[in-house]
C-alpha cells in the first residue's frame, strides 16, 4: 500500500481545497455529539483519541428525514414531482474504523434487489478518510466483529497519527488514489516502518465473542429468557438504532406542505418501537419489548449475515454508551457466546 505524509497544516489546506472544489466535507463535531459539514479548516477534528460521537455519520448517506416525492394537486389531478437529488461529492474526514465500513455494510440492503437512489446518489461518490483509533473504553468491541482500531477496511485513505504535527496517509483504494491525485502538493514521502510501529503499539479491545458461534446459537434458541431479561428494563426508545452506524430501518409518511401540495417522507424508524410492526388488525408479531430486543440482536448477528454475508454491527459501542437504562449490547452478545 502506498503511503505518504501529510502535516496538520497541510491537512487544513487540503480540506480548504476540497471545499473549494465542491466537495462536501463531513467531520465529527467538536462536542462529540454528531457529524457536521465542515465549512473551513477551523472545524477540523481529526483526532485518533476522541470518543466516537453519540450519533454516527450515516445521516449524510441515509438521511434522518427526506422527501421521496412531492405532489401537487391541480384541480382533481395530482402531479408528482421528484425531488432534485444532485450527486454529492461527500468526504468523510476522520472516520474511525468502526465508522468507515458503515456505508459498505448498508449498501447491501439498499442494493440487493431494487436500488435505492437516495442512498446511492450520496454513497457512490463518497470518499472515506479513515483514522487509526487510539480511543478505547469498556464499550468498544470492534475486534469482536472482524474489525480493529488500526484496520483500513472501509477507508479509501487512511490516516495514522505519527506525532503532534504529522499523519501518515495510506492510499487504500483506487478511488482514494484518484481522489488524492490533484492534491499531491500537500503530501510528502512516507516511511512505512514508522507508521507500522505506531499501529503495532495500539492496543486491541478485548475480543468478547465469536460471531459465527453467536449466529448459530441464535438459530437454535429463538425462545430464550435472555431477551426477556433485557426486555424487562428496555424502555423501547430508538437511541440505539438512531446512534448506530448501520441500522437502516425507515418509515414512509406523507405530510402537507400547504393546502394543495405535500410530500412523501422517508424517515428513520426503529425496531424497538412498539408500533413498528403493529398490524391494522391489532395483531403485533413482536408484541413485547423482549421480542423486539431479540429482533435487534438477531438482525445484527444472524439475519443480516445469513442474507448479506455481513455482521450488522461495527462494534462502535454507541448504543451501549447512550442507552438510558444501561443495556450493553456486547455484554448481551458475550453472554450468548458463553451459552453457545
Amino acid at each position, binding site marked *: 500500500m502506498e503511503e505518504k505524509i501529510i502535516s496538520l497544516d497541510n491537512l487544513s489546506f487540503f480540506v480548504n481545497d476540497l471545499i473549494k472544489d465542491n466537495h462536501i466535507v463531513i467531520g465529527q463535531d467538536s462536542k462529540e455529539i454528531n457529524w457536521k459539514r465542515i465549512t473551513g479548516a477551523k472545524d477540523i477534528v481529526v483526532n485518533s483519541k476522541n470518543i466516537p460521537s453519540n450519533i454516527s455519520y450515516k445521516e449524510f448517506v441515509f438521511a434522518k428525514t427526506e422527501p421521496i416525492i412531492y405532489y401537487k394537486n391541480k384541480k382533481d389531478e395530482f402531479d408528482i414531482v421528484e425531488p432534485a437529488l444532485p450527486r454529492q461529492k461527500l468526504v468523510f474526514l476522520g472516520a474511525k474504523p468502526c465508522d468507515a465500513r458503515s456505508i459498505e455494510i448498508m449498501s447491501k440492503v439498499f442494493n440487493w434487489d431494487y436500488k435505492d437512489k437516495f442512498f446511492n446518489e450520496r454513497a457512490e461518490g463518497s470518499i472515506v478518510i479513515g483514522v487509526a483509533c487510539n480511543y478505547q473504553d469498556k464499550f468498544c468491541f470492534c475486534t469482536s466483529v472482524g474489525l480493529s482500531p488500526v484496520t483500513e477496511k472501509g477507508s479509501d485513505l487512511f490516516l495514522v497519527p505519527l506525532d503532534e504535527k504529522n499523519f501518515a496517509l495510506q492510499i487504500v483504494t483506487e478511488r482514494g488514489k484518484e481522489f488524492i491525485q490533484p492534491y499531491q502538493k500537500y503530501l510528502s514521502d512516507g516511511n512505512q516502518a514508522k507508521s507500522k510501529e505506531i499501529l503495532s503499539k495500539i492496543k486491541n479491545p478485548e475480543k468478547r465473542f465469536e460471531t459465527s458461534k453467536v449466529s448459530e446459537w441464535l438459530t437454535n434458541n429463538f425462545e430464550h429468557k435472555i431477551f426477556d431479561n433485557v426486555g424487562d428494563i428496555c424502555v423501547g426508545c430508538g437511541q440505539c438504532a438512531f446512534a448506530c452506524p448501520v441500522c437502516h430501518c425507515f418509515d414512509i409518511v406523507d405530510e402537507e406542505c400547504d393546502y394543495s401540495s405535500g410530500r412523501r417522507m422517508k424517515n*428513520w424508524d426503529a425496531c424497538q418501537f412498539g408500533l413498528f410492526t403493529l398490524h391494522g388488525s391489532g395483531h403485533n408479531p413482536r408484541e413485547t419489548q423482549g421480542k423486539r430486543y431479540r429482533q435487534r440482536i438477531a438482525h445484527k448477528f444472524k439475519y443480516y449475515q445469513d442474507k448479506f454475508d455481513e455482521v450488522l454491527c461495527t462494534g462502535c459501542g454507541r448504543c451501549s454508551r447512550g442507552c*438510558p437504562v444501561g443495556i*450493553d449490547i456486547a455484554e448481551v452478545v458475550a453472554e450468548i457466546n458463553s451459552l453457545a
Partner: protein
Amino acid sequence: MNELRAKAKELLTNGTVKVVIGYIESTTPDRTKPFIARTAEDAEKLVFNKYCVNNLALYLTRKEFRRTGVVGIVAKGCDVKAIVQLIQENQVNKDDVYIIGMNCNGVVSELGQDFSAETIATKCLNCSVRTPLLYHTLLGTLEDLPKREDKNFVLMQKLDAMSAGERWDFWEDEFERCVKCYACRQACPLCYCERCIADKTVPRWIESSAHTRGNFSWNIIRAFHLAGRCIGCNECERACPAEIPLSLLNRKMGMVAKKEFDFVAGMGLDTPTLVGTYNLNDNEDFIK
C-alpha cells in the same frame, strides 16, 4: 448497601412485595442500571450509590407491574416526587407500591464520570427532598453535598433576556439535532400515555419527520404536556443522544407553575394537581 440488600431480601421473602425495582452495577463501576429483583438471590445484586441516576418510577406504570401486586421500588427523593405525581394522576395505586426511600447525597449528571463538584447533577444543587417526602422504609445517611454554580440557571436567565427571535434561533440550533428517537419520552416517568400524541395518525398532530418543523412541534408540545407535571428528574435530557438541553424548557415551565400558581409537582399527596384540578378562584377568565 448491605441494609438495602437486607431490606429487599426481607420484603421479597416475607411476601410484602412481588418484585423490587432497583439498581445494579453496570458495565463499569461508575455506572448502574435498572434491575427487577424477583428473588432473594437477585436482591444480593442491588446497589445504591452516586451513579444511581435513573428514575425508576418509570417502570411503575408498566402493564405487567400494574397486575403484579405490591411493587417495591428503590427511590431517591426526586424519584419519589414522580411516584407522588403518578399516584395523584391515578396511574399508580398508593397501596400497590412499597417505597424504599434513600437518603440521597447527590448523583452524577451523566454516567461514565466520577462524582465531583463538577459532575454533580444540576437537579441536586438545590434539592429540597434529599430525604424523600414519602417512604415505607428510609435508608442511608445524609452527608454534605459538593457545591458548584448552577450554570443551567444562568443559561436560563440568558435565554429569558433574549428577544423572541434570538430565542427561536437558539432552539432551532438545538432542535436541529433531534433525531426523533423519543428517548426523552421513553425515559420519562410521567410520559406514560399508552398512545402518545406523537404516534397518533388520525389526525397526525405532530409530524414524525425529524426536520425543523417536526422537531419544534414535538419538543414544544412535550414540554407543554409536562408543564405543572414535570418533577425535574431530568432523565429526558440525560437520555437524549443529541444532547438537547431539555431541562431548560421543563425547568422554565416548572418555574412558571411556581410563580403563577404557587405549585410544585410531586410535593405532596394532599396537594391537588395543577392541571387536573378545577379551582373556583382560578385567576384565568377563560376557564370560568
